[in-house]
């Protein structure tokens, strides 16, 4: 079983209070904020390693990020992945989810074939959830997202969270899986893993190393344009409800109903 795992470096969510918005340039300023492995991708990697441990095979990490993301990929190798490809080139910069998924898919195609592509359901920074299914489309592989539980044997049983419940699927590879954080508890990195990672390779892939249409990568291949970035006014207005406990409770329910939090028929 060959498994490709998509890993994205993101600003450490612990430091989100230090991220600010530059309203003139319309971008996030994240200078000085440490970069970590996207938390859901870590769960995807854990699941990939568990599949490998049960069924044999190998886990290969793919990431599109600047060169300095190599440390994060090394951590992935220390967790138990076998190999990593870091797609790093100025030509890849400025990519939206379409160009990102195209570039990743082309690399996966080149170094494949893979039976399974595993990814976190969404990134902590962009949070679009678009890249995993788009990679599936580029590679003509079916995809499942919002996965909260998996069982594996000859076929894969997969439970996906949907808005009003949970759907159970039975699938056979090749397939793309996008997992949610509740699926597992990622292992800690131990010293044996760190020592083993010494002999594992992070290969840096430049634009010339993979066969891509230059009009589909980076800024050129990205039809998405952010129109405007604004900081919403989230100023709060307090309201005091007085009366007996029963009247206060009624007042709270009424307020929640007006705000649309409680809908008709819920209570």
């Amino acid at each position, binding site marked *: 079983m060959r498994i490709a795992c998509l890993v994205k470096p993101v600003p450490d969510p612990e430091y989100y209070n230090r991220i600010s918005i530059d309203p003139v340039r319309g971008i996030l300023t994240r200078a000085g904020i440490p970069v970590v492995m996207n938390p859901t991708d870590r769960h995807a990697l854990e699941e990939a390693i568990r599949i490998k441990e049960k069924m044999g095979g190998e886990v290969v990490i793919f990431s599109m990020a600047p060169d300095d993301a190599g*440390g994060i990929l090394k*951590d992935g190798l*220390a967790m138990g992945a076998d190999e990593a490809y870091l797609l790093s080139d100025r030509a890849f910069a400025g990519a939206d989810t379409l160009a990102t998924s195209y570039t990743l898919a082309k690399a996966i195609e080149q170094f494949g074939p893979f039976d399974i592509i595993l990814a976190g359901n969404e990134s902590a920074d962009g949070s679009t959830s678009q890249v995993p299914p788009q990679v599936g489309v580029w590679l003509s592989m079916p995809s499942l997202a919002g996965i909260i539980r998996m069982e594996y044997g000859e076929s894969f049983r997969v439970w996906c969270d949907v808005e009003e419940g949970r759907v159970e699927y039975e699938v056979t590879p090749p397939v793309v899986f996008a997992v949610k954080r509740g699926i597992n508890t990622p292992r800690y*990195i131990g010293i044996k893993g*760190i020592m083993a990672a010494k002999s594992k390779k992070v290969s840096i892939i430049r634009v010339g190393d993979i066969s891509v249409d230059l009009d589909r990568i980076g800024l050129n291949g990205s039809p998405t344009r952010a129109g405007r970035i604004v900081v919403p006014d989230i100023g709060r207005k307090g309201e005091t409800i007085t009366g007996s406990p029963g009247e206060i409770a009624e007042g709270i329910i009424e307020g929640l109903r007006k705000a649309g939090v409680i809908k008709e028929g819920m209570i």
Partner: protein
Amino acid sequence: MDFKFSEEQEMLRRAVREFAEKEIAPHAAEWDEKDYCPVEVIKEMGELGFLGTIVPEEYGGTGMGYTARAVIIEEVSRYSAGLGIAVMTHSLVVAPILNYGTEEQKKKYLPKLATGEYIGGLASTEPSGGSDLVNQQTTAEFKDGKWVINGKKCFITNYDIADVTLLLTKTGVNEKGRPELTAFIVKKETPGFGIGHKEDKLGLRSSSTGDLNITDLKVGEEAVLGGRGEGQKIVLATIGEVGRSGMSAIGLGIIRGCLEEGLKFAKERELYGKPLTNLQAIQFMIAENRMYYEIGKLLTYRATTLKDEGVRCDVESSMAKLHNTEAAVKAAQRTIELMGGYGVINQYPVGRYLRDAMSTISAGGTSQIMEIVIGGDTIKNF
């Protein structure tokens, strides 16, 4: 000079930090309050290889060395210096077995110590004092093919959780008329190994410290480490280079805790409508915490780098230990002052850091003993 950690050492730091943030930080205050040594966390650290850095791969460790060990102790002590000293003390039986043990002893003990299946301890201090090591009252007599050990040890870290303890004894008088000291590797379940009174300590309360009452404990010749009469050399070398560099890493962890907690508080707390960090008086305190942290870091990792290179480093370890434990006390005191009234409220951890820091000063040799080591070397060699 190369002041960089290797890629593996950086990876190790990230890995231990994550472990410490999730498994130690949330519980450290409760362990301190309940005076509880979390053996289960030490075991988990063993499974991750965090207890076997100084053990070569052939004996089940990873051979990453003393710098890696100090990185682990610093990261653990950042949140719980008590757990830090329990982890540190473990190596005080690992290192001597590695350095002075027979092949049989190494094969018997090191793989289990490296993975945390066994926890280790060192028992040399007696009620008569720790610094007066030569004046051992615990005796070992050779009778009917067995060594029979009797005596009392006190202030022994891991005294009740250690599966394997290195026990220092007096086995006679040498040809120069001086006490002949011999070290024995003793397992916890050996009859006569009595776990005694537990000390109620000021700080480092996530480690257990207490008495060992040794009564007619019998071991064979195979329990002698490094040969008869080698005990003083073994224990002094172990405390001097392994213990003191470990204590310096504990102090370093406490200083970083003070630096980070003080900085966090100063950024969040507003005074005159602005964060405390806008006040120069506060900046001075933060600057001092940062500077002492950086000095401590250089001293600690210089000593451990020398150790990894096989160079004698007892003086460097003593300087690191002296500086870091004293600087940790001052950093904690400074940070409490920075936080004003909040500094003395136990909801914040800095009061615990002060108690921990004060408790590191006597462990592994007092500040004055460090000065004697440093002064003696300076007068002779500088």
